[in-house]
């Protein structure tokens, strides 16, 4: 996946949209902050989500963090493999470690999200 095509929420979720379906995960920066992920709770397929909704929980050896939907729509898939093997998030947050797929609601977009350079600037100030 070309990272330059991703968009980001301030809360460190990434989004990639293909044919009206947004794939959502968390960024490498976020994963590195969390350190080893031990437990993952993802939303139910079919759930309607709004931007900023708390949709899941990511627990690591360091802390427990909420995971927020960066887009509006309906959850059509979640990554059960990552729930089973949370190491996938640490190894490959942008491919094997994706979290959910959301069919965007009518009129919903991703223009409110940060592009790569804006996100890079944000994490440079946080790191």
């Amino acid at each position, binding site marked *: 996946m070309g990272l330059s095509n991703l968009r980001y929420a301030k809360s460190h979720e990434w989004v990639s949209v293909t044919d009206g379906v947004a794939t959502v995960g968390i960024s490498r920066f976020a994963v590195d902050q969390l350190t*080893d992920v031990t437990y993952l709770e993802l939303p139910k397929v079919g759930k309607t989500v709004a931007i900023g909704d708390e949709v899941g929980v990511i627990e690591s050896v360091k802390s427990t963090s909420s995971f927020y939907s960066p887009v509006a729509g309906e959850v059509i898939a979640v990554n059960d493999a990552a729930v089973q093997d949370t190491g996938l998030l640490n190894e490959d947050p942008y491919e094997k470690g994706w979290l959910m797929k959301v069919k965007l609601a009518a009129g919903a977009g991703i223009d409110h999200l940060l592009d790569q350079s804006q996100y890079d600037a944000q994490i440079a100030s946080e790191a």
Partner: protein
Amino acid sequence: MNNTQSTELLFEISKTGRRCHRLPVCDVPVDEPLESLLPDAHRAAEPPPLPEVGEIDLIRHYTNLSTRNMSIDTNFYPLGSCTMKYNPKRHERFAGLPGFAALHPLQDDETLQGMLELLFHMQEYLAEISGLPAVSLQPAAGAQGELTALFVAAAYFRDKGETQRKKVLVPDSAHGTNPASAALAGFEAVTVKSTPGGLVDLDDLRAKIGPDTAVFMITNPNTLGLFEKQIQTITTLLHEQGALVYLDGANMNAILGITRPGDFGADMQHYNVHKTFTGPHGGGGPGSGPIAVREFLAPYLPAPVVVQDGDRYRLEYDMPKSIGRVRSFFGNVGILFRGYCYIRTLGPDGLKDVSEQAVLNANYLRARVAEGYDIPHAGPCMHEFVASARGLLREKKIRAMDIAKRLLDYGYHAPTVYFPLVVPEALMMEPTETESRETLDAFADTLLAIRNEEPDMLRTAPHTHIISRADEVKAAKEPVLRWK
């Protein structure tokens, strides 16, 4: 920590027939057969599978295990937010006096007068120190104190018919127990942001206060070791909306005798007697988390409370609006007892001195640590401060965890790491008032030396302990909770 003795379990070193002691043959004549004294059906078919070991092996087993422990009696223990101060040994001696230690809580009040008098005065002292007149000694630790106070708040609002108050506001630098207590008490926890300076963001607080606000929980000084200077503005804002202010008393060690939560507008607070008033802790407890509240909340406190009737003391159960018991008997009396001894030993001036020395020690250590580490929030601090290893992470990929683990090699307990969450790579240090300047200097010198050690070696520290880095992921996901 150079003990190389085995930590095999007693079951593993057991040898059939080996004994510490052999009882003599029973010399009481038994006329009846055993069967008639204790029928077969009630007797075990074989002896219980207890370990069989010699006395020397038993003593070595426990003595060696005890040397694996790090404690305030053996090591400097700057564990931020935990107030690991020295626990005076004379309290142990007093607590062991048979007039106290041999009491049973189900004895009649009349035969417990000494203990009840002591607990009554403890209630009075805690009320005086907090500026909040009504006290319950029952909660078993700080988190239970928080939960109890929120139950009290919920009962108060129910009684007033203000059931629309569903929200508890909690700053993002709060202890994780705050939102957890709010949720357990049936409220919704709402996070309030901090300013870059580390204090409550008043604009965000104003935006979140409303007619549905029940309680604002604030830790003051907060977990960054900063005193919330706008505390009176904050408490006024909450009171204007009819909401209550809860003070998380975890950091009382900074303000004893200097300011009182009741005076700056808190309506309820808990104490951690085991921290502020020296109950030995760090090995899992027990703690003691009494709460103090304003007079109008007193009817809702857990029953019973200790009351004075003339020259007698008794437990008062006639509290129809009470939320009920939260702990068996009178709470963790052993810790309350030690706290009482501490308060009586020091007196009002001594307690104030404790806080002044604790703040002085923290600021001294802060200045020394700042020679080599980022300290994101401007000083002076109160009784603790938070340093950050973010610079080291950027330069050499060394994390706060690596520094914490390496400190163990030098015989120091690690500081609190990765808390509060608002500071990346946080190292939170609370030296307490009982440490000497020499100890603080030696610790600071060590921290500064670690900074320049070989990164690869730091990432695999500690190197001098029997267990190095535990596999935390495996421990969290596949915990081994029993032997075999």
